[in-house]
């Protein structure tokens, strides 16, 4: 009885799947999927390497400080970093006084309450504050940005596939759409005339739908002046800020890797000992 019912159920499910298969094949032949501009012209992140890559990689503190400078002078005009506190910048190599000064000098002040009137006010940031958003709320952010919402950047490199390289590629990826060809030599506007970027958007093949609301934030060299004398080329700035955002997404990465090596070392010794005791105990038993 069980087998009879099973046979019928199996026949039903498999039969419906095979019917569905026929249906899918017929539909695929009758209405083949149309290639889309996103599908053909979206680029995967560029190959770029960082000091913190790989199982031994450590953040380059100088690079993180330069990245912070790019963030504070360029990105922070629109993007918040609401999971990172000023005190966290101690990990970039700043001492307590420098962190305090950094917080105090931050362009956007922190929302607070006027102690006398109780009205909404702002005050200078202190190390315990999270990096404030330049906009009071989402509506204000959208109103200032052509109805686009600048995302918080704290986790951006973990929230995108191959995130650090993605941020770097996106910053380097603004192209002139007229005459743009991909690596295969196909010209976007010839293949997909309807994919022309609409006003208010900017063409960038590294962005998911090729058109991003953010204008090219790092348009040319020397947009910031580095304190350590590094030449602020466009590429250098993009790389530094990408490394900085890798740090904001995972400030405990170095602890993770060093703890990982300790754990692996311990486990390898444990496993060798366990193997030896296994061999010893089983020595007289054929198995």
């Amino acid at each position, binding site marked *: 009885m*069980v*087998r009879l019912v*099973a*046979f019928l*159920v*199996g*026949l039903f*499910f*498999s039969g*419906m*799947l*095979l*019917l*569905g*298969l026929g*249906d*899918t*094949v017929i*539909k*695929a032949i009758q209405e*083949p*999927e149309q290639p889309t501009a996103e599908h053909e012209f979206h680029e995967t992140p560029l190959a770029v390497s960082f000091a913190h890559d790989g*199982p031994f990689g450590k953040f380059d503190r100088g690079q993180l400080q330069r990245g912070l400078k790019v963030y504070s002078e360029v990105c922070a005009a629109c993007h918040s970093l609401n*999971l990172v506190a000023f005190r*966290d910048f101690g990990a970039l190599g700043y001492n307590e006084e420098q962190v305090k000064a950094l917080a105090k000098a931050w362009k956007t002040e922190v929302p607070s309450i006027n102690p006398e009137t109780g009205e909404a006010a702002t005050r200078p940031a202190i190390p315990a504050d999270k990096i404030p958003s330049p906009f009071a709320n989402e509506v204000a952010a959208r109103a200032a940005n052509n109805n686009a919402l600048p*995302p918080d950047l*704290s*986790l951006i490199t*973990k*929230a*995108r*596939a191959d*995130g650090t390289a993605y941020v770097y590629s996106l910053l380097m990826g603004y192209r002139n759409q007229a005459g743009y060809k991909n690596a295969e030599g196909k010209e976007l506007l010839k293949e997909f005339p309807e994919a022309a970027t609409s006003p208010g958007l900017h063409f960038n093949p590294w962005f*998911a739908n090729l058109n991003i609301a953010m204008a090219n934030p790092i348009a040319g060299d020397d947009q910031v002046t580095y304190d350590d004398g590094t030449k602020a080329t466009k590429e250098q700035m993009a790389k530094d800020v990408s490394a900085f955002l890798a740090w904001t*997404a*995972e*400030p*405990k990465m170095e*602890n*993770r*890797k060093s*703890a*990982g*090596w300790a*754990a*692996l070392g311990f*486990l*390898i010794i*444990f*496993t060798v000992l*366990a*193997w030896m*005791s*296994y061999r010893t*105990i*089983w020595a007289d*038993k*054929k*198995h």
Partner: protein
Amino acid sequence: MSFPWAQEYKPQGTVSKWVDERLPLPRLVYNAVGAGYPVPRNLNYFWNFGVLAGVALVIQIVTGIILAMHYYASVDGAFNSVEHIMRDVNSGWFIRYAHMNGASFFFIVVYIHIFRGLFYGSYKAPREMIWLLGVTIFLLMMATAFMGYVLPWGQMSFWGAQVITGFFSAIPLVGEPLRQWLLGGFAPDQAALNRFFSLHYLMPFVIAGVIILHVWALHIPGSSNPTGVSVKGEQDTVPFHPYYTAKDGFGLGIFLIFFVAVTFFAPNMLGHPDNYIPANPLSTPAHIVPEWYFLPFYAILKAFTVDFGIPFTGIIIIEAKLMGVLAMFGSILLLFFLPWLDTSPVRSGHYRPLFRKFFWFGLIPCIVLLTYCGGKPPYAQWVILSQIAAAYYFAHFLIILPIVSRIERPLPLPNSITESVTGKPLETAAA
């Protein structure tokens, strides 16, 4: 418990004797995983995975209890509380990554454990009850993992909850009210998050309870073995301790090396980047996918594309969506009937030439294919492949296996476990 030659627990000191007479807990442990449990001497490394699954559950419970001390089940605060754990709690990043990857490794070892059972026929008499309890544990694990994935309240958490609870709305008539009742609202929100957290904390202990039954049921007939031949005498077995405690210790070391390598060096490899974006009910991700361990079932769900009805009348009896949901649950529930679908008296796949062919060239590739297609966008080529693989999956268990069991001529079995190990026939007749 199981064999007359099992070593008996002999309490040594006065305290042990005192305890043994009043609450023989040490005796229970001795008979369960100590020298008092005789185990076939020929178990291979596939028999390590039961113990490993137990260890994985303990890792999940320990890390989970610590996470719950810092987690805040609120739609406004859940995402940030997880990031607080990652950034500000001492070694919180480790606890969280261990829990997140621990779930994946729990499924990896359980899938290997199930694979072992399927190939070596561990579900056959007299071990059906162990198998039934095992499938129950698997279902409980899936429910627990799903609810746990919702807790960080990222984009995939929210939309995964939306899709999975949407299955209930496929049920005719009562579907939508049922879904709203389960969620406590029209969409996943505070009520759903709170109850998922409550149940996610409860269910691991339910799993632990069913594991106790699973191990209890195992100790009635004793462990199976790679030949599938029953134990015939004392020479066929060794005491669990020290023989298998030592072997499991080595297996545990290897397992932990893999677990640690992923947890510390590629902690986000098995996750999805979208779950680092806070949940936003107004923005649907381009492509909603569940965690990797659900992908084969997700592929089965999506493989049903045509309604079942009376041809040329337009009357639909079962909609494609409902059928997908039924098939997805059915693909797991059918495992409950496996002991009665596979009627071959030979347990081990080693001695079943025809079964082995269908197993290696049919079932395994089709599960791999379903896992792969489950993570792909619904383009025709992936739908076609999942339809073929899913059709085979159902045919394999429900049609092919019962027929194979009938027509197959198994290879000759060794006379005993000892003979298969030593290559020499037994001198004394089996007791």
